[in-house]
């Protein structure tokens, strides 16, 4: 029995249905622990004051926004190569979640930027490439919505996702070249000297784990919804035609 068994819609529904309650519980637990720990049980930063606590939303959301696109890319490739409907629907399900994560990162970033840099928005490379990512999500979702035949939509959006990924990476590089930024470099790498102090670091890790779980849970939920929607459409079409 291969792993592709789970790509069967029926099988996926059974397994995900059994898994979901656990996932929801675990997600809630991690998120609550992480956020409460971060917001109430860490001190203020000596430079940034209490605004530093936005980090617990901002960083996980930003990470997930990027990784959601990665997951969509993987799912698109699987669909194109093996034509498993669940993976196409999973990609479709993930897009609005990724979009929301991008929005959260942008919004929290803007709110954070006001006290830190004195402006809501700056044309910093990282910020800018995030804005472009936002546009990619918008285009991807709009294309899904615009096409009526499900398999056609899955195929076309997959092609878009692949080509878009290449251009997204290219944009990231181009933007770097175009403007030097204000934004922090990566500071979570384990081997770096200037890591965030441990006080912030551990709750942040828990929050990131929480967001990962949240993402997985939401993708499961939405994929199930998409599958049901698809069945409903098929039924309705037949009903109408009968």
């Amino acid at each position, binding site marked *: 029995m291969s792993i592709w068994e789970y790509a069967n*819609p*029926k099988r996926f529904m059974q397994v995900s249905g059994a898994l979901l309650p656990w996932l929801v519980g675990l997600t809630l637990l991690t998120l609550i622990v992480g956020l409460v720990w971060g917001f109430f049980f860490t001190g203020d930063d000596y430079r940034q004051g209490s605004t530093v606590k936005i980090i617990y939303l901002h960083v996980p959301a930003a990470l997930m926004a990027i990784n959601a696109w990665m997951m969509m890319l993987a799912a698109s490739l699987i669909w194109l190569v093996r034509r498993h409907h669940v993976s196409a629907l999973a990609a479709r399900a993930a897009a609005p979640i990724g979009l929301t994560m991008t929005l959260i990162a942008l919004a929290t970033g803007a709110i954070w930027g006001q006290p830190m840099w004195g402006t809501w928005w700056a044309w910093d490379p990282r910020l800018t490439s995030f804005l472009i990512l936002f546009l990619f999500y918008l285009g991807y979702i709009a294309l899904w919505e615009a096409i*009526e035949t499900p398999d056609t939509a899955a195929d076309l959006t997959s092609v878009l996702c692949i080509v878009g990924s290449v251009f997204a990476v290219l944009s990231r590089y181009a933007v770097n070249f175009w403007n030097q930024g204000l934004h922090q470099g990566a500071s979570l790498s384990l081997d770096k000297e200037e890591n965030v102090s441990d006080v912030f670091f551990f709750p942040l890790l828990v929050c990131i784990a929480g967001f990962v779980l949240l993402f997985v849970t939401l993708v499961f939920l939405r994929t199930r919804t998409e599958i049901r929607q698809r069945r409903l459409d*098929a039924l309705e*079409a037949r009903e109408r035609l*009968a």
Partner: protein
Amino acid sequence: MLTVDALSCARGGLAVLHGVGFVLNPGEVLILRGPNGIGKTTLLRTVAGLQPPVAGRIDAPAEGLAYAAHADGLKAQMTVVENLEFWSAIFGGPPIDEALRAFDLVGLRSRLAQNLSAGQKRRLGLARLLVTGRPVWILDEPTVSLDRASVALFADAVRAHCAAGGSALIATHIDLGLQAEVLDLTPFRAEGAPGEASPRPRADAPTDPFDDEAFL
């Protein structure tokens, strides 16, 4: 020349025809009949290779098909001759004079396609078939808006094509006066397809648990 076996085809993700099979030999004409909406257009597009079959097999000679559909593929801003020459060049087919003559277009040679009447446009669309030089013609309601004389021209063209070893698959509602076999599509209507009375089993209770029919 063209063999179709147990073919199922779908439109808009919904099965339309099921288990269609026929053989088309050189020199033969096969006429597809069936009420509006049975799936003639869908079948012809599938055979022409424009959409993948849901199931079944299509055996056609590589690069042997010429397809003519509801739309004629004419450029309104090009003249009759330019339109034909373009398709002749693309298909590497024979020169266009013969085609112009066969469909009585000589007098319209240098008219822009947008200034043709409905029937003249259609004649030009059919003349295109002759310049493809392809042996198998796949035609979807070719005689729409043609008058009697033009229908006769068309029938002559098909006869000449068959005499030269070609063959044609034609979906039509009218009588073309051709000697041809007729395939009625009504028995091949897919279960649960448009117009079918008995609904197929509900989607939430498929017999095989691993086969989800919403994803056909």
